[in-house]
């Protein structure tokens, strides 16, 4: 196995403003993200040889991408892979270039969620016997929180405080990001005293629901070099799909094997030995605060049951030794499902180029993105690692 390391590069990226984009359609959001990417790369639609469109519920096919961007009868594939949708569209685009089939390709992720009239996440399901209990995402991850507190003997108030520190960290980062949906500081008291959504998770433990799109132009390192100096290299792409946790009565609900396995393959490709030391920044799937806490441990940033200590020590803040969700995360961007993965890559790309403005980290040479889709016990997880060209 040769792996993906250094075989493809990102030469242009775009990201729409995220939020309640009442006046924009999904196609409008695609145009906003793609044209920023074109401009960033110094390329146009006529240079794109193939494209991948990631969306969970906004479109069913690749055609809307062709229609929005007027692409020239090129092959387009629509990708849907739960919350890892955008990253998987990106991954498939990378593999097409690495295989030598195409030179320049486009990956776009988009989701328009705010037209449903329902403030939660409304995803239609296939007909069935409908006896599965209604467990929207907050309820699913709340069960992980309940068990996490129990397993590590964490009193409720202390557990809530740890989660609140994660939320305030991400909200602080969001204040430094003009593209974020939420750009307001919050306090740990606000988080702890917020209305309960799914106990023990309150309103500020949950990410928002937003509209948004993000795009990446992928090419070979050779072509990238001819276009710009600060292109970004793909170092590793891991994807793991598990569906066995809930069938097993011995699975603990406090670690997600899919994250462990996806990160292991990405680390192997990228040559990461000690993730806590080797990785400079990470954009992880903070759909809920408890998810981010468990991800620290699953990615090997913190020891098992030790995530809280690292949170209290500020390890994952912009000033910490391993900043996480520097752009504000899902907490501030919301989670337009099909767009989030490429939105995360956009932040890593900007940090690695030194163009992250007020959020810019001192050292950002190796960055990671992570998406977790599905529910505890049955996830699709993607982990991607990116490095600077130098």
């Amino acid at each position, binding site marked *: 196995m040769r792996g993906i390391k250094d075989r493809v590069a990102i030469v242009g990226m775009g990201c729409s403003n995220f939020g309640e984009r009442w006046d924009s359609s999904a196609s409008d959001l695609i145009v906003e993200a793609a044209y920023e990417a074109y401009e960033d790369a110094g390329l146009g639609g006529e240079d794109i040889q193939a494209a991948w469109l990631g969306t969970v519920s906004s479109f069913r096919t690749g055609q809307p991408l062709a229609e929005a961007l007027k692409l020239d009868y090129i092959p387009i594939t629509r990708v849907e892979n739960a919350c890892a949708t955008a990253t998987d569209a990106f991954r498939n685009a990378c593999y097409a270039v690495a295989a030598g089939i195409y030179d320049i390709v486009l990956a776009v992720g988009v989701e328009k969620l705010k037209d449903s009239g329902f403030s939660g996440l409304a995803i239609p399901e296939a007909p069935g016997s409908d006896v599965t209990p209604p467990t929207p995402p907050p309820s699913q991850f709340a*069960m992980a929180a309940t068990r996490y507190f129990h397993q590590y003997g964490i009193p409720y108030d202390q557990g809530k405080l740890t989660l609140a520190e994660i939320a305030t960290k991400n909200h602080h980062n969001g204040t430094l990001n003009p593209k974020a949906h939420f750009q307001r500081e919050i306090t740990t008291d606000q988080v702890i005293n917020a209305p309960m959504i799914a106990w023990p998770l309150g309103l500020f433990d949950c990410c928002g629901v937003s509209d948004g799109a993000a795009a990446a132009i992928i090419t070979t390192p050779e072509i990238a070099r001819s276009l710009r100096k600060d292109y970004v290299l793909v170092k590793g792409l891991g994807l793991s799909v598990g569906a066995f946790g*809930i069938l097993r*009565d011995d699975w603990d609900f406090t670690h997600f094997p899919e994250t462990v396995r996806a990160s292991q393959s990405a680390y192997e490709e990228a040559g990461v030995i000690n993730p806590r030391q080797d990785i400079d920044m990470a954009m992880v799937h903070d759909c809920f605060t408890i998810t981010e806490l468990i991800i620290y441990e699953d990615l090997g940033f913190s020891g098992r049951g030790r995530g809280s200590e690292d949170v209290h020590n500020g390890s994952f803040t912009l000033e910490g030794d391993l900043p996480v969700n520097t752009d504000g995360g899902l907490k501030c961007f919301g989670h337009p499902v099909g767009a989030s993965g490429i939105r995360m890559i956009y932040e890593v790309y900007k940090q690695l180029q030194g163009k992250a403005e007020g959020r810019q980290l001192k050292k950002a040479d190796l960055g990671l993105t992570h998406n977790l889709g599905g529910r505890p016990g049955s996830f699709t997880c993607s982990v991607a690692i990116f490095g600077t060209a130098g």
Partner: protein
Amino acid sequence: MAGIIKFGAYIPKYRLGPETLGWNSRSERAVANFDEDSLTMAVAAGLDCIDDIDRGKIDGLIFASTTPPYAEKQSASIIAEALDLRQDLFTSDITGVLKCGTSALRSALDSVIAGSCQLILVLVSDSRQAPPRSDVERNSGDGAVAFLIGTQNVIAEFDGFYAVSQNILDNWRSSNDPFVRTWEDRFSTEEGLYRVLQAAIDGYLDKHGLKPSDIDKLALYAPDYRRHSSLAKTLGFDTSQIEDPMFDSLGNTGAAFALMMLAKTLETCSEGQRVLVAAYGDGSDVLGFKVTNQPLHNENSLLVSGYLCSKHVLENYETYAKWRDVWEMDDGSRRPTANSPSATAIWRENEKNIRLYGSKCAACNYIQYPAQKVCVNCQAIEGGSNIRLSDQPGYVFTYSMDYIAGTVDVPLVITVVNFDCGGRLLCMMTDREVENISIDMPIDMSFRKLRVVNGIHNYYWKSIPKRGLRDERD
């Protein structure tokens, strides 16, 4: 010798009582939770009755209720799956009249006497809805009772029968009526209840050459306490001969009311005693039983007295009104409307959903729910056997409480249940007090109504905190 071999009961956990705000009554009545109906209560009563019986020996099931979930579609067939009874089973619903419970009992006795069935489970259950704050609502109660009928080892021998038929509109309800309708009280009482029951009981006694004093206990239907006591007196029975009608603790459970009293009597009666049950509705059925020397073997059953003690009184009337859908609500969430469940999927998943079968891998013995074609533990294919999880002891592994899931019963408690035998199930928890839920708490599984969409009543199992003989108000 035909008769009752075993019996069981089910009374929902919740009560409207003197301490319930807005209830305005000094007496207590049992109310079904929002996810209970006559069918789910019948399942629970059945489980209480057949706890230690070989389910494979039961070859008949009769369900009786004035409140079956469907106007057309049998309830007994659903109940048979939930109780995991055999497939070559005689099933029947008897509905449409308050005395349907005694009719069911009579049919079952006739069948075992004729030899067309060996062992019939009779389940009588009602959850009757009266207009909010009416007298009928105040005096009604929800509950179910179960009798196992056969010819071997009976605890109460079938001793006689007498019936009266009377066409009268005193209580009625058409298909589209939300509430039971009644005619003027004085007419219904004098020309209906009193006259008909008098004729029926006199008829029974005459037919069998008995006097009221020959009867040790009478389980007598009446709609409320006042009429019950005056009727008993008119019939020539002493207070000591009358089984307690439980108007201050349970309420009139409709088709299951006189039979609930019969079950309560059987809990304490002794050999040789003669017991009568008199049901009412478009006439009357009177059945007589003689208690044998067979001991009651119901150590694990709660029976009527156990369920009466295991209760929680609601804080306010509004909660009950929401459960019964007589309280308009708008949560403003614009949640997408639910699609109809697929009838094919429901049919295909009978064993998974209604019998609650998991599978045990033939290669490695790993228990998993739902049953898997490929074992989650050893990846062996298709080598499993069914294992019924509905009556397995289990505990809460983890849980959440969802405040925005759009349920009647906020918060919606979701539990991950681990069974002691192995196997894990994700399900809702019901009949729970939020402050008492914890990891590792022991649970039972209870068959409940999930929702009605497209006219389909969709049933499944939920976890409930283990019910015991303890008053849970403490």
